[in-house]
Each structure stands twice: as structure tokens, then as C-alpha cells.
């Protein structure tokens, strides 16, 4: 399991103990992105942190404009999207609903 600890992003395996995945001191917010990287909140800065890459990518920096981010959450990936399968199902249902007599 992944924690946001005082030193940064920590993976805690009950049998192996903690492993620091990325050093993000003073961070106050953490979310898992769809690509497996992390969104990390530190002050006014929101960064993408990839444990495999030592250089974080800035997603948003509010300091020049006086914007402070107090918390972040990642939108669930389970929100239904109008995918092709859904549209196809809709068309099939409509065809079934209004069926021409032969």
C-alpha cells in the first residue's frame, strides 16, 4: 500500500517494511493518476511524480498568480463515458423498441 509520509511517497509492505518510492518532503496531497504516476501537492505546486523518473513534472504552479491549492483528488475512472459500445447498445435498443412489422 502507498502512503504519503513525511519523507514522501512510501510503499508499505507489512512483511518487508517501508520503501520510499519518491522523495516529496512537505507534500500534503497525493493521488494516483491513470498512467500509474502520482499527483502530488506541495504548497502551490501540483506535480506529477513518477517513481521511475527522478524529475517531477509540474502540472500546475499557482504561486505566480497567488493561487494556493489546499487539496486534490483524482476523479474516478468509473464515471460512465459515452463509448462506442454504449452507443451501439442504444441503437440496438431503439431498433428493438420500434420494430417494423414484416
Amino acid at each position: 500500500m502507498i502512503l504519503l509520509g513525511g519523507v514522501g511517497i512510501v510503499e508499505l509492505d507489512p512483511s518487508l517494511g517501508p520503501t520510499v518510492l519518491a522523495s516529496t518532503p512537505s507534500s500534503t496531497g497525493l493521488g494516483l493518476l491513470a498512467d500509474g504516476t502520482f499527483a502530488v501537492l506541495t504548497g502551490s505546486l501540483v506535480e506529477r511524480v513518477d517513481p521511475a523518473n527522478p524529475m517531477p513534472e509540474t502540472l500546475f504552479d499557482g504561486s505566480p498568480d497567488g493561487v494556493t491549492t489546499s487539496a486534490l483528488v483524482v476523479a474516478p475512472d468509473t464515471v460512465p463515458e459515452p463509448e462506442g459500445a454504449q452507443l451501439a447498445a442504444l441503437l440496438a435498443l431503439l431498433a428493438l423498441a420500434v420494430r417494423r412489422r414484416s
Partner: protein
Amino acid sequence: MGRSRRSLTRVRPLALVAAIALAASIARADGLLYRPGDVILLQHLARPSPVNRIVALNPATLAMTPISAGQDLSSDEVLLSGGFDENGDILVLISAPNNTSSLVRVDAQTGTQTTMPTTIAGGCNPSGPLARLGDLLYVPTATDLLAVDLATGDATPITQGGFLVTISALRSQTPRHRCCLEPSKAISFASPLRRNGSHWSPSSEVRFQQRSQEIRFP
């Protein structure tokens, strides 16, 4: 001509109702102010005039979509933490006067805000995202997972003897009464409690599974 055309068609009510429901679902998803996987930021703007706002950040394109535009929250309040309910609407826990906290629901399609009628006695100091399941709001703190009864505002720690974690991905997910964690996510508690009416008591029926990425609530 019209009469003969009507005679050639037959409407199946059940299929029509299903089609309408599916169309409504598609329309709702298409009208969301955020996309799945967006990072929802709770922000305080210092200028030109102090205001709180909520925006969605697309981590792939860095595009920002205002969610609370035109209806920004009062700058007098502090946005403590956020989460989602079963409908995808955004929940924001804010600090309120008199050592209380209150919950605001932000419609994911319109940005319209609704303040929940009850305040949380004693306030909350969340350490991670919120999750709402039915009439309960789950709030992780530095020492406990709180279950807040949204009808009464009562906050009950439902963990005993756990160790301190920051939950980074607790979120609600259908079906109801089930809460999933994203892969390899953060939660660990020693003795979760079970809700029985208005009381909480130790029970083995509530399982917090660290490795299976899933926890179940009563």
C-alpha cells in the same frame, strides 16, 4: 399515409424505457465538467479578490476546466478535502465557525453547490480524500477513519488501534456499500467497527483488506 405507417410499426415499451435510460446515462456522462482521471483541485485565489474555487486539471494536456465558475465558494472558509459521491458529484469538506465542519456537494454537470444541512460536530481535520456511501461520509484523519452520519452530523471513529496513514485513494464506487482503493493503495487499520443502527461495535464482518485493493463496509 400516416395511418398506414403507424400500422407497420410496433413499440416495445420495455426496450424503449431501457433506451431512454441509457441515453440519459450517456448524456449525463457527456455533460460532466471533469473527465475521468482528471485531478480536481480545491484552490484559494488571493487576487484580484480572495475567493475559493474548484477546477479540474487534465494531467495529460494540462488543460484547466473551472467547475465552480460563477459560483465560487466564500473565501472566508477553508476547503479541507474533497471526494466524490456515487453519482460523480464532487464533495468538499469545509471548515466552519465554532469548531465545526460542513459538507458542500458540487454538481458535476452544472457546478451548482448545495450545502448539506448538518454540520459535523467537533470539526474534522482530514488527511486524505473523502468517500460518501449512502448516508455516511468517510473522512480519513491522521489517526482514524471517521464515519460521519450526514443526517445528524455525528462523527464516529470506526477504527481502533490502527496506525497512522494518509489515505490517498479512498473513493466510492458502485455498487453501493462498497469502497474500492486504487491499486496498491493506502489503508491499514487494526480493528474496524461495524455499524448497527446508530451504534458501532467491533465486528469481523467489516473487512479492510490491504492487498486485495478493496474494503467493505457494513
